[in-house]
């Protein structure tokens, strides 16, 4: 009450009352205008409008667009639209629904699941909308119903184009899937753009490229009779089909990886180091995305959701694992780049490391110690103590800055819905989340890729690709071109990249050489995958599993199996001119060298050796990579 002494509360109140009365009058006047208009419409012109409404025979109906198709890099169709016929009941036109369903079930197989779905959908639809009682009718069933259709007024066969994924489980995680639009999505989309469209991209590429894939709705003007039946089409504006996508994905490679990962839980991501294009992305176990397209049954869904193997969980982009020893080449390079070490410097490993003034022993995996090692030796033999010392010398800030350059700790920005960003622990992060200061010991743990440090397989593959091409980090991407099916116009996506600041080609070459020795050296941790045909550079990792969550209802053997370490391997090949970089994670696979590395080898062999004669490039795709 700054100006309290000038206040005149009574005057204010009087003024206010006057204004309120004026407002009330304005309200009455405005509503009177509305009422006047209503009287004009409903009293004086009622006859005119009544005639119009009775003659109102022209209705505008939406024509849904055809969803864009998805192709792999060799123009193999991965997501198709196929006609599907369902049997629909229009509740408003049927007197006894239960009896009608019983009569139908003598003609066509209708089980309890169908009945339950019908009851559920019926509540969501208006009375004169068709509600499906049976989906996916066979030709025989359609013919059988057609013969008897006169007995079933208010029951009709409805044809629509449904998404079909020919490769089923092999592409479920990489493509995502479409499903019926739910109420939440309804609020987000433009209802007129989706008029007549029942499906929308739910996850993965289907979701990320929803706008391009969906297309533009068309309309037709139809004449109907007084009961609402369509007599003829007067005018139409055809819909524009959605745009087709051409992926970097190689479906042969994808399937080979699915086979190699059969029976294992984990993820594999393969990236072309020359473009950042994702050649394959596998998360196992998978699921059949086709189940979701037309509404998955509750039983199937519960089975998938509650499976201990979490098949619905896309480990490739959402699985966050400690990178473990696979981080060592990157940290070794960081040491070289920052001048903390040179190639000639040796560090001593006596089996453990102690921070000055502390008694805690940070142990090497090799209890007896490695002796004095150079950075090359340390990468090849995966010595922990060397990297404790190096991380300690570099300090957490320099370490974080360098690792962030390789894309760790942040979402890659891939054109794919719902990826996670992993976690690159920093002192600020700890202060913010845990409310405690950073301890020097934690820097050591980051140095061997454990502790709070988490990466996704996608991040790991993208970083490996940058290592493979000596320092160009490409933001990974799924789609190489978007194609307009009607005009044939192709729009290729552009690579987004940045240089990783390391002065001197020799440092890159030195670390790559060390990674080559991991496979080719006599002490290399992945020497079992050495071969004469293709030179592979790689790094093994073994990540400790600390927690497993939700163990209550699983038996002990399973729990014990799930307490085992995760096996990791990163690799690229051929060393001289890399064409593929790959990250493999096998959950509870124990050792990177024995479990994950052979899978990486299979991936590389599949891509580089088994390839067919150079396939025709997809129309318009620019000449990148291969």
């Amino acid at each position: 009450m700054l100006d309290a002494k000038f206040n005149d509360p009574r005057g204010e109140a009087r003024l206010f009352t006057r204004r309120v009365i004026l407002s009330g009058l304005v309200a009455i006047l405005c509503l009177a205008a509305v009422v006047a208009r209503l009287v004009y419409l409903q009293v004086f012109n009622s006859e005119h409008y009544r005639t119009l409404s009775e003659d109102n025979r022209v209705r505008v109906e939406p024509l849904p667009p055809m969803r864009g198709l998805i192709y792999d890099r060799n123009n193999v169709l991965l997501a198709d639209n196929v006609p599907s016929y369902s049997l629909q009941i229009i509740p408003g036109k049927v007197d006894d629904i239960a009896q009608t369903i019983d009569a139908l079930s003598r003609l066509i197989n209708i089980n309890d699941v169908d009945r339950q779905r019908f009851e559920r959908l019926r509540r969501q639809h208006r009375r004169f909308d068709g509600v499906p009682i049976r989906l996916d009718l066979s030709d025989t069933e359609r013919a059988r119903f057609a013969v008897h259709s006169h007995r079933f007024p208010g029951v009709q066969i409805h044809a629509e184009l449904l998404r079909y994924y020919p490769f089923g489980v092999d592409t479920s995680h990489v493509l995502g899937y479409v499903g019926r639009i739910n109420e939440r999505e309804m609020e987000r989309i433009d209802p007129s753009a989706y008029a007549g469209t029942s499906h929308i991209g739910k996850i993965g590429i289907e979701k990320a490229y929803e706008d391009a894939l969906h297309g533009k709705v068309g309309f037709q003007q139809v004449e109907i009779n007084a009961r609402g039946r369509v007599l003829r089409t007067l005018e139409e504006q055809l819909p524009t089909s959605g745009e087709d996508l051409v992926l970097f994905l190689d479906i042969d490679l994808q399937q080979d990886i699915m086979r190699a990962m059969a029976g294992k839980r984990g993820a594999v991501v393969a990236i072309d180091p020359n473009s950042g294009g994702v050649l394959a992305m596998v998360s196992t176990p998978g699921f059949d995305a086709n189940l979701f397209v037309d509404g998955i049954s509750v039983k199937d869904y519960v089975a998938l959701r509650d499976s201990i193997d979490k098949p619905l969980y896309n480990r490739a982009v959402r699985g966050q694992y400690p990178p473990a020893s696979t981080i060592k080449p990157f940290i070794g390079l960081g040491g070289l780049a920052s001048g903390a070490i040179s190639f000639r410097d040796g560090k001593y490993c006596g089996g453990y490391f102690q921070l000055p003034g502390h008694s805690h022993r940070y142990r090497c995996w090799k209890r007896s110690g490695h002796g004095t090692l150079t950075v090359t030796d340390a990468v090849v033999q995966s010595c922990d103590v060397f990297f404790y010392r190096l991380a300690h010398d570099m300090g957490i800030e320099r370490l974080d800055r360098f690792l962030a350059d390789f894309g760790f700790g942040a979402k890659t920005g891939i054109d794919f819905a719902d990826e996670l960003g992993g976690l690159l622990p920093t002192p600020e992060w700890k202060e913010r989340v845990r409310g405690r200061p950073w301890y020097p010991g934690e820097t050591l743990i980051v140095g061997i890729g454990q502790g709070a440090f988490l990466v996704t397989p996608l991040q790991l593959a993208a970083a490996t690709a940058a290592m493979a091409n000596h320092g160009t980090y490409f933001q990974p991407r799924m789609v190489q071109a978007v194609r307009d099916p009607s005009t044939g116009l192709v729009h290729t996506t552009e690579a987004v990249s940045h240089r990783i600041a390391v002065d001197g080609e020799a440092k890159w070459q030195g670390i790559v050489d060390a990674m080559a020795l991991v496979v080719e050296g006599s002490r290399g941790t992945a020497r079992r995958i050495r071969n004469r045909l293709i030179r592979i550079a790689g790094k093994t990792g073994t990540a400790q599993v600390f927690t497993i969550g939700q163990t209550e209802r699983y038996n002990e053997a399973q729990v014990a199996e799930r307490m085992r370490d995760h096996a990791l391997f990163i690799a690229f090949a051929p060393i001289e001119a890399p064409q593929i970089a790959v990250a493999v994670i096998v959950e509870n696979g124990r050792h990177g060298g024995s479990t994950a590395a052979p899978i990486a080898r299979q991936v590389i062999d599949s891509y580089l050796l088994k390839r067919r004669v150079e396939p025709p490039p997809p129309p318009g795709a620019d000449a990148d990579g291969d």
Partner: protein
Amino acid sequence: MTLFSDTLSEDSERGLLERLHIDWPLLLGILVLCACGLAILFSATEQSTGQVERQIFRLGLALGVMILIAQIHPEHLRRWSPLLFLLGVTMLVAVAMTGEIGKGAQRWLNLGVLRFQPSELLKLAVPMMLAWFFSGGTLPPSLPRILVGVIITAVPVLLIAQQPDLGTALMVTSAALVVLFMAGLSWRLIAVLGGLAAGGAPVLWYLMHDYQRQRVLTFLDPQSDPLGAGYHIIQSQIAIGSGGIYGKGWFHGTQSHLEFLPERSTDFIFAVLGEEFGLVGILVVLAVYLFIIFRGLYIAVHAHNSFSRLLGGAITMVFFVYLFVNTGMVVGLLPVVGVPLPLISYGGTSLVTIMAGFGILMSIQTSKYSQSR
């Protein structure tokens, strides 16, 4: 006019409604309107029990919010006003930077499990902030204070308009204008503002998105686009006109049931009312609306301080603007702006805001008693 006197409440023992800080005439009006709304919705949705159930759930939720807010003393509301305003503007900025794309426009803020439309909050926060600001000085406000008030309004309105959400920007602006008017803005200034608005129209036109311009053009000549935006207006007028004086009867509106009328359960539900219940039905519903508006104005006039007066008046008049803009649009007096018919249209977002406003009105009215005791 016994409903508008508070002798009854003062003389009787404090009943349950009073202890809950509920103004029963206002509650009665609201409940009657909601009941009418559900009946119309039941018909407009082709007797979809699912949608009606969802709407009942939303109404229950919104009524809960109303009762909750009615418990807050106006003095607390006054003190929180600047904070609430700052919070709202901050969230608008957040939406502008990170908001989810909804309906081709950035409006939603995703708070993990909850998606929230901050512009809704501003519908209450702007009048609260202005009422707080103007009630802190003499009334009518001096010219510099008015200018500050204009700036307070302009910041959120511009942020909302660029989302772009013309409907909400309009509602927030009208809320601010009502506060200014009730604060005693001199007629000379009102004339100047009117002049400025007329001068600003071309600028607004320039800033509008194509689809918004299209709506205005179609409004001026609906026949020009009978299959596009004009379709709404033509069909809604046919629906209302063919309803005549007594209407075609519940569930018997051909316009709505044969699906000629678009958006019939949301923005154009008033046309369903007109078709099925005729002029008589509409007049009954409008009378209930008018009753609520007059009760709100009565509460505002009898409030104890200028903050409560200004806020109460603004909330009531914004409710009226909702009603007028929607009905005006449906009968073809105003352009098609996406504003729902308050308390009747299907949907939950604005419902909560409106009920929260009524909660504030009830708080203003009932706290008067507790003070006088």
